């Protein structure tokens, strides 16, 4: 076998995709050919390195997808044209799933980078901070320079201690980034709780709306509802509450959503409540929904 032919087969050999005879021929060639052995070793080293580039989907994404699919399949199963129109309208309101998770890393990094840069400038208003020693350090390269000295390129991660009031924009930006930190639900709960005091800011409110709809942790979603209470009459809040009522898998969140939606007795929500009566499996949530419909003098069923 010529080296050129053997090399075309190496990848198939590596993956066990050759026939018995084909493998035997490659074995025989490799025993006699050092350059091809080295080529195989190099290819295997490259494929091993590529292994480390594989990423697992973030925790919570599968559960979120399953929850969404469950309801979408149920909607598909229903064929009433009137209901179809209602669901199409609702789907048009609702942002695509995953929109909350996607910016979590990038936006947090960008926001933190931007504000960290601002904060290092002199005269940083009331915000006070202290820089600590690096908590993580890695030497990237070492290079000898003149006179026996060396030049090091070092990557460092530092912690900063920041103090300020929640109504300071810079603090709010950090809290909004922390409210999207996918790794730490406790931090998200605390951030959302603090941000709840500043729901009058449109940026903060959009973080609360996103937390309500997409945060995988029910504690964070419940906190977000608290912060949205003063804005329960606003269309964006009502859409998010309707979405939570129909899609959230936590009965506590769904109950809170009913209460807030029912505060403003508006006909636009009757269809959502009637839909809840059809699909809701939790007796308590059904009773609350039924009560809300009766208070609005609406039928508890559709025909």
């Amino acid at each position, binding site marked *: 076998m010529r080296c050129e032919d053997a090399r075309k087969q190496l*990848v198939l050999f590596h993956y066990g995709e050759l026939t018995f005879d084909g493998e035997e021929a490659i074995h025989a060639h490799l025993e006699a050919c050092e350059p091809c052995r080295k080529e195989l070793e190099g290819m295997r080293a490259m494929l091993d390195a590529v292994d480390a580039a594989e990423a697992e989907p973030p925790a919570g994404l599968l559960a979120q997808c399953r929850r969404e*699919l469950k309801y979408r399949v149920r909607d598909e199963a229903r064929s009433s044209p009137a209901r179809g129109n209602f669901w199409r309208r609702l789907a048009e309101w609702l942002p695509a799933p995953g929109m909350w998770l996607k910016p979590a890393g990038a936006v947090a990094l960008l926001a933190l980078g931007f504000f960290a840069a601002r904060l290092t400038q002199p005269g940083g208003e009331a915000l006070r901070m202290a820089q600590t020693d690096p908590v993580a350090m890695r030497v990237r390269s070492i290079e000898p320079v003149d006179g026996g000295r060396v030049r090091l390129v070092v990557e460092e991660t530092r912690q900063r201690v920041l103090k300020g009031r929640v109504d300071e924009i810079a603090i709010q930006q950090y809290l909004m980034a922390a409210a999207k930190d996918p790794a730490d639900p406790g931090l998200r709960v605390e951030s959302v709780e603090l941000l709840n005091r500043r729901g009058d800011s449109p940026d903060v409110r959009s973080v609360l709306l996103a937390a309500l709809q997409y945060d995988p942790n029910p504690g964070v979603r419940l906190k977000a509802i608290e912060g949205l209470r003063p804005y329960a009459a606003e269309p964006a809040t009502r859409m998010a509450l309707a979405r939570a009522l129909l899609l959230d898998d936590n009965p506590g969140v769904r109950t809170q959503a009913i209460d807030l939606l029912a505060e403003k007795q508006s006909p636009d929500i009757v269809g959502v409540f009637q839909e809840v009566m059809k699909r809701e499996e939790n007796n308590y949530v059904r009773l609350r929904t039924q009560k809300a419909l009766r208070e609005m003098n609406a039928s508890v069923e559709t025909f």
Partner: protein
Amino acid sequence: MEVHTVQEDAALATNVQSGLTMDEAALIRAAQKGDELAFERLVQMYDHAVLRLAYNLLRSQEDAAEVYQEAFLRVYRNLSHFRFDCSFHTWLYRIVTNLCVDYLRKRKSRREESAVVATENGERDLTQEWKEERADGDPQRKLMSRELRERIESVLAELTPRERTVFELRHFHGLRLRAIGEALGASEEAAKNCLFRATQKMRAALGDFV
């Protein structure tokens, strides 16, 4: 018309509800008759692999979640036409890989149009932002040499959608090339060629790093 005895249906329901491993064909038949629990079990047999495939191919949580929804909704809509003339696994992977290849093609053409967009605050390089987003969150990735990781991600992104998909399915999902060919509606020989080209390109781009 298929006729099932009461006992058969009861046994089926018991198995589905108790979460015992059921024969895949029985699950499919139950789902074809409208059994939502059977469909859910069927989805859960494969959905982690589907999400992992979409996430690794598209490297975007949002796109991976959309492919997940679209793939399983297509399965749901068309399950009644599934006649067992290929394996369910192959049929599902055909749907998922086609969706992913479409996403990759759209993204490639968008990227070729322009990755740098003008904003009020100057120009933004979207590919750089994508890299930043991906670098966050996965501790294993942080351990890799940044340079090597960037090179790997860049070479994977430069493969054609077919090469990328064949490589992903063979290398990370362990599918045989024959099955990959079936999933992509191509011959085994074409899948072999794609895999060969993909590894050649990667070897050429990464040779100095490994």
